[in-house]
């Protein structure tokens, strides 16, 4: 009595080489983001560092945490959680940017 929820396709277990490749990718990305931080890119440094962090995060989430193999609700959970953190951050930052200047802490 299998429920309609698609249970993961337990095909051939992924080979160890895949994990090694992921590890190397992560180390390289860490080196890259460290190198980029020494170069002063002005406004872009944060955006670039976050982009690299998202790349590293998705490598860990997809392969180490096997989201690559499982379909369905499991993937949705992480995406929803991150989405709501972004929603909360963007609305709070929007409030700070458009607030009456004297209502902000003196800076």
């Amino acid at each position, binding site marked *: 009595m299998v429920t309609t929820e698609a249970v993961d396709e337990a095909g051939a277990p992924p080979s*160890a080489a895949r994990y090694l490749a992921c590890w190397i990718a*992560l180390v390289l990305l860490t080196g890259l*983001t460290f190198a980029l931080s020494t170069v002063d890119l002005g406004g872009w440094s944060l955006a670039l560092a976050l982009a690299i*962090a998202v790349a590293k995060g998705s490598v860990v989430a997809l392969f180490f945490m096997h989201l690559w193999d499982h379909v369905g609700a499991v993937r949705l959970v992480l995406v929803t959680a991150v989405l709501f953190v972004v929603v*909360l951050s963007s609305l709070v930052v929007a409030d700070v940017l458009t607030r009456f200047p004297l209502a902000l802490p003196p*800076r």
Partner: protein
Amino acid sequence: MAGDARLAHHFSSLSVQAHAARLGMWLFLGTEVLLFGGLFVGYAMYRTVYRAAFVACSHHLDRALGTVDTLVLITSSFTMALGLHLARGGRARQATAALGATLALGLAFLAVHGHEYAGDIAAGALPGRLYRAGVELPGAGIFYTLYYFMTGLHSLHVVFGLVLLGWLTRRTARGDFGAGWDTPLELGGLYWHLIDLVWIFLYPLLYLI
């Protein structure tokens, strides 16, 4: 361990039970992401308000130690994934070695981070009102408040992860997990990978801006 001894009475099959456990664990990991999310919101807001102070304070942090921490955690995530892979392949002894390596790397992370805290406290970089170190700009105390909250909460989760890993390593050594049954090890692995995921985002925000 007979296959169905672990099948709870109210589940229809072992794979459905494993799927349920995995979905439950992922929902819990979602709440952990949101718990840290609240701190990321505080970081985003105060970075917008105190931009200069945040950049100055970030340079005061020890970037090298931060990078070492990141590499240690990434490697521990790798050995964790390897451990699960080996356990599924039935090679319990090698899996125990991999999990042992993960434990060691986790402890190394705590050691490096403790050393970093000691350096900060010695330099007088205490949170909020107690901030005494160097950066004269308004908001420096807030940066360190956030720094201690984010890395402190993360380190607390590393400690929980290590306790969990210790229990899992002992069970792997006893050969509890094999091709047919690996759910506790998989869920423990997910928790450890989440700790690594959170640090991957903490590292650039605190050390590299």
